[in-house]
């Protein structure tokens, strides 16, 4: 069994209440940080731990904290990003539902480290039940003196509020989230300035994912060195993986970074293998935005070594043969799934969620969806494949925020790795309406490294 840091007590009855959480060692990190550590100590500890942002980008959390500007006379804000909307990702919902005090404890420690006196947890509006859970937990913590004025007699004041979103994937982008929290449309801001200089209400602001904030608790409790012992290379610690799709045991798993992908899919400790005795066709490893990989490329590197669940190993091979850990949304496709249909579905998602502010994303996402729809419903042309690749290329990198890239990568990668399935949808349009392309050669052993086309 891998070591668990966040979900260790998840099955303890009543762990969602302050009393039980506290009894199992909860809020020790607040006591330790506020009473025995300076704010710089806390930032330094998080830096040393190697913790990387768990929302998707993987930027070192401690580094992000150290960029925060500290001008005189201006408040600083910490905002927790609980706008979990990336298809394939549901770890934050799980964590908030079952162990809300872990997030609150992390928020107190992180707010202290950053010098924030008011902090917000921005939760996607659809998670109303989770908003109620958090509000109740905050009230409990406040009643016990862990929030409000003069926390634990240390002189540190902190108010913590929950803010609901309104149904917009784009608000997971940190500057769109800030706009939304200011009561505006969720249009990402043009950077610079970055939030660390001018964020919420034009004040220095840090935005962190739920899991990143929660991970601060074990880092403070056990020390950065202990945390950094877990994991592999620059992928330190543990990561929550949301596993879904055609597997036996979908759910949220806390893994030590570095577990082989094959073990993650087939071991009973995690996904338990494929459901219904089907074979593995493809995996989207880090949420819908990251490149989709066929079975052979997700399990092995082109060198023949096992691919591991880590930032580096999943990215090995770059766009030619790799993908990304992203938010840890691990979606598994069996041999009965149609890659064309799924790509259309994802393209529809990004089209629906584009904020419409900048032209390549506003127009390009809709264009890609329409072409993919035509392919899926038997009216496609062979030239559509190159068209899609070209449109994706013209969106990628040219937009205000990463949604453009997120929309382009799934389409470009699906065509890169499953081109013959797309071609079959054109050449056998009628047949494709009635049956799926199947597994084809997507699970075949990889050829020797040098023969893998770099396209």
């Amino acid at each position: 069994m891998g070591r668990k840091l966040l979900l260790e007590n998840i099955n303890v009855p009543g762990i969602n209440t302050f009393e039980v959480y506290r009894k199992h060692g909860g809020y020790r990190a607040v006591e330790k940080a506020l009473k025995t550590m300076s704010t710089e100590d806390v930032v330094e500890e998080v830096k040393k731990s190697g913790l990387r942002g768990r929302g998707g980008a993987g930027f070192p959390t401690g580094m992000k904290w150290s960029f925060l500007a500290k001008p005189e006379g201006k408040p600083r804000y910490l905002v927790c990003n609980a706008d979990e909307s990336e298809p394939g990702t549901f770890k934050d919902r799980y964590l908030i539902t079952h162990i809300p005090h872990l997030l609150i404890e992390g928020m107190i420690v992180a707010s202290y480290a950053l010098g924030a006196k008011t902090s917000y947890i921005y939760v996607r509006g659809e998670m109303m039940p989770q908003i109620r859970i958090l509000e109740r937990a905050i009230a409990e913590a406040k009643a016990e003196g862990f929030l409000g004025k003069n926390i634990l007699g240390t002189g540190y004041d902190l108010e913590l509020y929950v803010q609901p979103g309104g149904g917009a994937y784009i608000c997971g982008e940190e500057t769109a989230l800030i706009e939304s929290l200011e009561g505006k449309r969720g249009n990402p801001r043009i950077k610079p300035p970055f939030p660390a200089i001018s964020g919420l209400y034009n004040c220095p602001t840090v935005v962190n994912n739920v899991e990143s904030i929660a991970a601060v608790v074990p880092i403070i409790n056990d020390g950065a060195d202990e945390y950094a012992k877990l994991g592999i290379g620059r992928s330190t610690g543990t990561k929550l993986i949301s596993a879904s799709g055609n597997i036996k045991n979908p759910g949220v798993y806390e893994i030590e970074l570095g577990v082989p992908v094959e073990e993650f899919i087939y071991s009973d400790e995690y996904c338990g293998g494929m459901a219904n005795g089907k074979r593995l066709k493809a995996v989207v490893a880090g949420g819908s935005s990251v490149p989709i990989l066929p079975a052979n490329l997700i399990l092995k590197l082109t060198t023949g070594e096992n691919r591991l669940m880590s930032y580096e190993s999943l990215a090995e091979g770059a766009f030619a043969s790799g993908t990304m850990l992203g938010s840890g949304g691990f979606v598994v496709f069996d041999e009965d799934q149609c890659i064309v249909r799924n790509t259309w579905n994802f393209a529809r998602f990004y089209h629906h969620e584009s904020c419409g502010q900048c032209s390549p994303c506003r127009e390009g996402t809709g264009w890609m969806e329409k072409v993919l729809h035509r392919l899926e419903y038997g009216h496609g042309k062979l030239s559509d494949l190159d068209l899609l690749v070209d449109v994706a290329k013209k969106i990628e990198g040219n937009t205000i925020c990463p949604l453009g890239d997120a929309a382009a990568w799934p389409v470009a990668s699906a065509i890169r790795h499953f081109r013959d399935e797309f071609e079959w949808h054109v050449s056998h349009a009628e047949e494709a309406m009635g049956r799926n392309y199947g597994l084809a050669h997507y699970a075949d052993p990889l050829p020797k490294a040098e023969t893998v086309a770099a396209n």
Partner: protein
Amino acid sequence: MSERVKVTIDGISIEVDAGTTILNAARLIGGDIVPPAMCYYSKLEGSGGKCRTCLVKVSKGSDKDPRPMPKLIASCRTGVMDGMEVQNITSPEVMEARKGIVEMLLINHPLDCPICDQAGECKLQDLSYEHGSEATRYEFERRTFDKIDIGDKIQLHMTRCILCYRCVYVADQLTDQREHGILGRGDAAEISTYIEKAIDNDFSGNVIDVCPVGALTDKTFRFKNRVWFTKPVDAHCDCDKCSGKVTLWYKGEEVLRVTARKDVNGEVESFICNTCRFERKNTSEWTIEGPRKISHHSVISSNHYELLDPPAVIRKNPALKEANIEEFERVTRHY
């Protein structure tokens, strides 16, 4: 005195005040190296960054940190650094990206230039001549909207809109009650008033001048004439609401429309009030200054209106001649 920094754009160096954007530095250099801008408007705070037509490549960040920037960046919203090197028309990557942006802007545009009042002074038209392809690769139905009237003087034809947000900034920054804004999301977003409300405000007409396309047009000029058949003349009046400095657009002796004056970048020099724009269409209400200088690239200059200086209307009408006597004598001296 503010600090001066050196920036090099397409090989041409210039010293500018620290804090200047790349686009404005390029405008100081002038000529072909100026990136096109469909949404940025120097007089509107917060504008820019959205259309992406002004993307450029920063091949050297600064003397201090010479690393290139990893992505193309919006020149209208990026400040120059000392020693920065920028590529615009010398970068194939930039030209390719711009071509892509123009294509994106056009896929849902109706291309109804033959019946559009903006034709001849449309920024999107210019842009597509310079960077567009002859044929479209888009084979789907284009987005359409019903025309709506915003008050009795302005028409909004959302089908042509490229969502530059300029009109929203105008309404926000120039008028005291913004009635229209961006509704909806993504490619379903539209400029609208949600419930039809008259925009009743002294400066609302400026949304027409800032609109880079034919989405917001002057109803008092609608279908009256093609702009290249009209003759622009600078004029002013004593106005208690605005500077009173305008351009009158003549057809024969009739003033067909009144607009603000636009500078070399196509931006309004000073915003004008609705009274000047919509109500003062008699020459007698204006002091004529002379023909408006129009770039020889523009189709409007093709009828050599500058030879008609001063306008015929002044030559023939003794009262007008008297009112504009100084101007008249100055420009007719060489005849």
